[in-house]
């Protein structure tokens, strides 16, 4: 089938403002949008710039706006988006070139919630044991690959980049509900602040955008509940 790919282009060294280029190419319905982008870069326009690494939905490098929705180009099949495909960079972060955005504000928010294991007890001789139920409690939020598809689909984040965003909350959730961790209070205090969970308007864009199917809005709700009740189970 013949596919038309309309691609957002911006080269700060040449362009005063962004524009769109249109490419036409033959594609199988089961090919991925990333395959088409690779083919354009390899055969039609070598200046097309985008991030990709594993190309199997694990590294989270190739999150982009495909037909108006945040997706991973490596997990989006042509048959799922049709013959006319529009590809744009994710919204809310400064565009560096074409599909490449500056991820630093996103990672700054991520770092602000202390997304790492904190336990000040002396290390035990063996492992820090945890029951299957305790592990299950935060299983969903361990799946985050930091692609930023959720955060950059959030209107609250578009309006104000200071909002920590769904991804940072998901990664805080992963440790808040970990029975071995001891810094839940500190994380919840950060998330109860001006740019924390209460900027969320529960519109579910993040949940729809997540390529790992994490129930993000549910996780945000659980963090709000933990703030209100103090219960971490």
């Amino acid at each position, binding site marked *: 089938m013949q596919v038309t790919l309309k691609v957002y282009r911006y080269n700060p060294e040449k362009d005063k403002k962004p524009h769109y280029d249109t490419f036409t190419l033959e594609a199988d319905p089961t090919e991925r949008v990333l395959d088409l982008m690779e083919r354009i870069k390899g055969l039609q326009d070598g200046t097309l710039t985008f991030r990709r690494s594993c190309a199997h939905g694990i590294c989270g490098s190739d999150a982009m706006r495909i037909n108006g929705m945040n997706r991973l180009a490596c997990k989006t099949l042509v048959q799922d988006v049709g013959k006319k495909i529009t590809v744009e960079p994710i919204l809310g972060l400064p565009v560096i070139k074409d599909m490449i955005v500056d991820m630093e504000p996103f990672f700054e928010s991520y770092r602000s919630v202390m997304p790492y294991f904190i336990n000040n007890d002396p290390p035990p001789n063996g492992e820090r044991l945890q029951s299957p139920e305790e592990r299950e409690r935060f299983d969903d939020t361990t799946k985050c690959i930091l692609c930023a598809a959720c955060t950059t689909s959030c209107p609250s984040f578009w309006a*104000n980049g200071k909002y920590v965003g769904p991804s940072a909350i998901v990664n805080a959730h992963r440790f808040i509900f970990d029975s071995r961790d001891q810094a839940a209070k500190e994380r*919840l205090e950060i998330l109860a*602040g001006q740019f*924390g969970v*209460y900027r969320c308007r529960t519109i579910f864009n993040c949940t729809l955008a997540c390529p790992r199917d994490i129930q993000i809005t549910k996780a945000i709700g659980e963090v709000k509940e933990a*703030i*209100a009740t103090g219960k971490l189970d």
Partner: protein
Amino acid sequence: MRARSIPKIFSFEYIMWLFMRISGLAMYVFALTGLTIALIMGARTQMDMGTLLRWTFFPIGTHVTSSDILVLEQWINPFWSIMQYLTIIFATMHGTNGLRMVIEDYMDAGWGVHVLRGLLLIAWLFMLLVAFNLIQTTGAV
């Protein structure tokens, strides 16, 4: 599985989040109370729809004095005065906090936010002052 817990966190954002939900529900309760009691007191035959709705959303005597009500004391008494104060306080706080949230959705934590917050506080206090004056002069017994 051992229970894990931390002390509850009462941040300003959490308290206002809670308040928005409680005040939103309270305004339904106030409006339905005003509407129901008005209908029991004879509003169905004594006043038109516009008057009834004005009374529902703010049960002050001046909203019904030009209608065909028979006993004015039923409509102007301490119970309705309390309802007026509660309606005004909850409605203006709900609206003002909604505006604060809109401002903070779009602005950083700089001085601009503090200025707008201050202006909003002044506007809210002014609204309360005007409304309390109205209730005192025309709505209370």
